[in-house]
């Protein structure tokens, strides 16, 4: 079943065409890689998908409904969550609080009910806290709960962002270079995490430059170059694709 369908997506900035007539789909439960040289337009695609940018033309369909004119919070509510390439944590908040904010979409309690000390509210808050704790543990940050987000080292900040995005229990998870700043060992942990998510049926669109990660987890890969899609296929196909090799992978020396 197709969860996400992107059709003729285009985005211009002045003279620069950052995304140029790109079409692809992501099926439910699939992990799709989005790769391409620096400046190919990958992050721009994610910004379009999450409503931070409006397409110049083209459409985005999610679960059969159009996303491309919704505001970001509605898109999030529809089930899309993301991480950021240049880490955007809530800098002043603790690691745990960052993830608790992520549960916003999963909670309902009104402030009025909280003013009245409604037991349902307390229960829900406890649950949110538990969910957040569990997620922190899952990304190996169990011990870091109370640490202020900015005091974490780079790699841990990345994992915290993933935990925050997962807290919304999104149908589609968009990861923008999650492995950047991780050493190979940590990358292995990340790969294991992504695989376990897939095993739970999580759909992921993954931007990544590290081929070990991309090839290790993706079912399918879409390749962009100068905003255009130049290839699409399984990891094996992509790694053999001539255009991809010249534009992106280069020859291993």
């Amino acid at each position, binding site marked *: 079943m197709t969860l996400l369908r992107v059709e003729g997506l285009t985005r211009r900035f002045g003279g620069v065409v950052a995304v140029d007539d790109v079409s692809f789909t992501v099926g439910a439960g699939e992990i799709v890689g989005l790769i391409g040289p620096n400046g190919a337009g990958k992050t721009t695609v994610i*910004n379009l998908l999450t409503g*931070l940018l409006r397409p110049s033309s083209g459409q985005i369909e999610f679960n059969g409904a159009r996303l491309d004119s919704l505001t970001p919070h509605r898109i999030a509510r529809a089930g899309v969550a993301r991480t*950021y390439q240049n880490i955007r944590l809530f800098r*002043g908040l603790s690691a745990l609080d960052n993830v608790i904010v992520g549960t916003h979409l999963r909670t309902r309690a009104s402030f009025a009910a909280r003013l009245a000390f409604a037991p349902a509210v307390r229960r829900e808050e406890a649950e949110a806290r538990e969910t957040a704790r569990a997620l922190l543990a899952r990304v190996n940050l169990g011990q870091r709960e109370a640490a202020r987000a900015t005091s974490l080292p780079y790699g841990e900040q990345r994992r915290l962002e993933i935990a925050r995005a997962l807290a919304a229990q999104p149908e589609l998870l968009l990861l923008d270079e999650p492995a950047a700043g991780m050493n190979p060992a940590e990358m292995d942990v990340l790969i294991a995490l992504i695989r376990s998510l897939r095993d739970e049926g999580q759909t992921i669109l993954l931007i990544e430059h590290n081929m070990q990660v991309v090839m290790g987890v993706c079912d399918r890969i879409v390749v962009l170059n100068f905003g255009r899609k130049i290839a699409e296929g399984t990891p094996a196909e992509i790694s053999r694709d001539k255009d991809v090799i010249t534009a992106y992978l280069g020859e291993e020396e």
Partner: protein
Amino acid sequence: MPDINWSQQLLNGLFAGSAYALFAVGYTLIFGVLDILNLAHQAIYMLGAFCALVLVTGNVAGLGPLPGGMQLPFWLATLLAMLVAGLLGILLDRLAFAPLRKRPDTHFSGMISSIAVALIFEALATWLFLPQRSQFPAGTIRPGAVTLGQGALSYSRVLVIVAALVLVVLLTVLLRFTKLGKAIRAVAENPKAARLLGINVEAIYSFSFFLSSALGGAAGIFYGLAVSRLDPTMGRSVELKGLAVIILGGMGSVPGAVLGGYLLGLTEVLSVALTNTSNYRDAIAFVLLFLILVLRPSGLLGARRVREA
């Protein structure tokens, strides 16, 4: 319906706008560099004006004549007073802003500490210059006026307009095209990066405060001369409008401050000229400001956000 003397009213607007701009350029410089509203700028404006007055008259109202009965010509007094104002600016930075630089709430705490320094400055001014209205003695500059069409503008007012233009052009050139200017902008944007580039960030802060305050002092002098009014609270009356002007112009944008100044000045004057009542002048000006901001959330010449993510 009385005749509207358009040329005179336009000149009035030009003067009012220049006065706002003159006050605002120094203000916006610090705003652009530190991203902090320096609410003591108005106090420096006042002290600059008084300093020049003291040098011209050779007398400190609350203490008595200067030693040696020194009396300087206006131009020299202005230069010296700008120097003093600039040094006060450095003092202000050391007192109110530097200690807070590393704090995450530096924007707000800086605003409040600058209010505190403004209070201190004002108290000292009241002591030194007495709680009274003063003015530059007659003949401080040549009396007379420039006439344009049906309008006339005294030399002291022309001085404000010219000073605003000259200082703004100089400051813009400095910021845009010189290495120092680029360093100031770099510090404004990212002090850590600026350090790593070899920029002496603290020196840039000091220099910016010196420059901003010297300009603020000059604004006080020229404006005080033009409207014949100096007193320890004179800065308060320009503060809000000055603030409006720099926001309207766009954060840290010097040309924006000028544009904002002219816009506000002309709006005020025209609202009086056209409606023949001044009762709603400020309301008209602020409604216009509000509308402009709603349409251009980062001010007239303010930069917009580059990318959200």
